[in-house]
């Protein structure tokens, strides 16, 4: 099962490190990362394999959102299926 992690917010030290550390602590493997900084705003998209997650995916999404709030970032995790459904026939 794959999920997309999207991180948006003001660029700062350690964004990638903290998101990856969080994912790693729940046994989640990152498959791909794309990131860009536009006008000081950091946007990152990760494809992660959540099938081995040590906690339920819904809980994981909540944990990431909480962590995002602490860093003043929007971090969300969504299962890939929603994007496939909306954008692929």
């Amino acid at each position, binding site marked *: 099962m794959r999920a*997309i992690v*999207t991180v948006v917010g003001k660029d700062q030290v350690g964004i990638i490190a903290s998101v990856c550390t969080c994912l790693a602590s729940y046994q989640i493997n990152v498959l791909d990362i794309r990131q860009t900084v536009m006008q000081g705003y950091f946007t990152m*998209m990760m494809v992660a394999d959540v099938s081995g997650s040590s906690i339920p995916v*819904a809980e994981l*999404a*909540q944990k990431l959102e909480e962590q995002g709030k602490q860093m003043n970032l929007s971090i969300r995790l*969504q299962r890939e299926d929603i*994007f496939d*459904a*909306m954008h692929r026939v």
Partner: protein
Amino acid sequence: MLNVKDILATQDMIDKRHLDIRTITMGISLLDCTDPDVNQCAAKIYEKIVRRAENLVKVGTEIEWEFGIPIVNKRISVTPIALVGGACQTDSYVPLAIAMDKAAETCGVNFIGGFSALVQKGSTKGDEILMNSIPEALRQTKCVCASVNVGSTKAGINMDAVAKMGRIIKQTADVTADNDGLGCAKLVVFANAVEDNPFMAGAFHGVGEPECVLNVGVSGPGVVYHALQSVKGQPFDVVAETVKKTAFRITRMGQMVGVEASNRLGVPFGIVDLSLAPTPAVGDSVARILEEMGLEVCGTHGTTAALALLNDAVKKGGVMASNHVGGLSGAFIPVSEDEGMIAAAECGTLTLSKLEAMTCVCSVGLDMIAVPGDTSAATISAIIADEAAIGMVNSKTTAVRIIPAPGKNVGDRVEMGGLLGSAPVMPVIDKASDDFIARGGRIPAPLQSLKN
């Protein structure tokens, strides 16, 4: 890997355009809950609903988090209570409504539909008891929704029931007068009611449905509105195509969520209701879509044509995105639940007559409309008869959900709260229809050929 643009587009729709799943509604058959003792029957109803739907809210919330898409309402619909209560030796079904309400509270859902009777051709003893129980049932419960089907294309219109429902609506407004007649916001009178509707207040679980089923209603007026802003001034061919593409995306998401929820609950997936259901929030309005097509205010000349295009394009886009389509499917035009409709009604452009014309080409009918508290029962019945006639002749579902707000007059506002919104009191025509309604009997079913 997925296109970054697509990912951001989806998130933008959810964050800024109010894209959501409007409801996942579990339909539960109560046909095995009959009992001669009304209290026993109520106990069976409570037990069965709670047993079937105990995980509905939990699963819904899990899906919301995993997919990052809000599911605004989790709801339950049940077999029309007039059928379930028919065996009870009683003259009131209020205890059954209370059992439904308690079950809804235990399950954590916000509405439960099915305090209903189907009387398009005539009423049984159970139907009569149900209709008489509606005012008190809606006064004593919080989540229960009632509906009565008074006409159909095959049966015609039961004018005795139409007359009765005018009186029942007035009584319901009177007994819930403390809340501006809120009870009437939970009471719908239908023609050609559908058995698999997931939307309230008109949802019930039809007798042709399985034991238990999960239906989904999608939404997204804000997404359509935003998409149309990018094709300003272009011909209607482009408008229709844009709406279709948007509706396709919205519906695919509904289909996916519905299948996921039904798998987790171990309940068969029923249908997706292809709808544009507005909310009172700014940017989530059907009226504003019509205005975006080039109308100064919703309700002016051209509104019916704009709505016809919108309604048809939503269905065309949605049909291919879903493997089973059903429910009411189309654009809803509830006045109190749509910020643009409220504004149009308040400035006097949107009238009851124009709304009636609009219901000829879109989903359902005169919905969430407040009228002066002194509107007579016969006038309300006549409004129902007009709407039922439109449904009967055009082979479509129509409905009336009207609030004769006690003590209120044109210019006042009725506050319903939450998703029900607030309704400006709209004027009705002040000439009587009493003798028309007093006739009773049945309006015969219309010809299905020689259509002109």
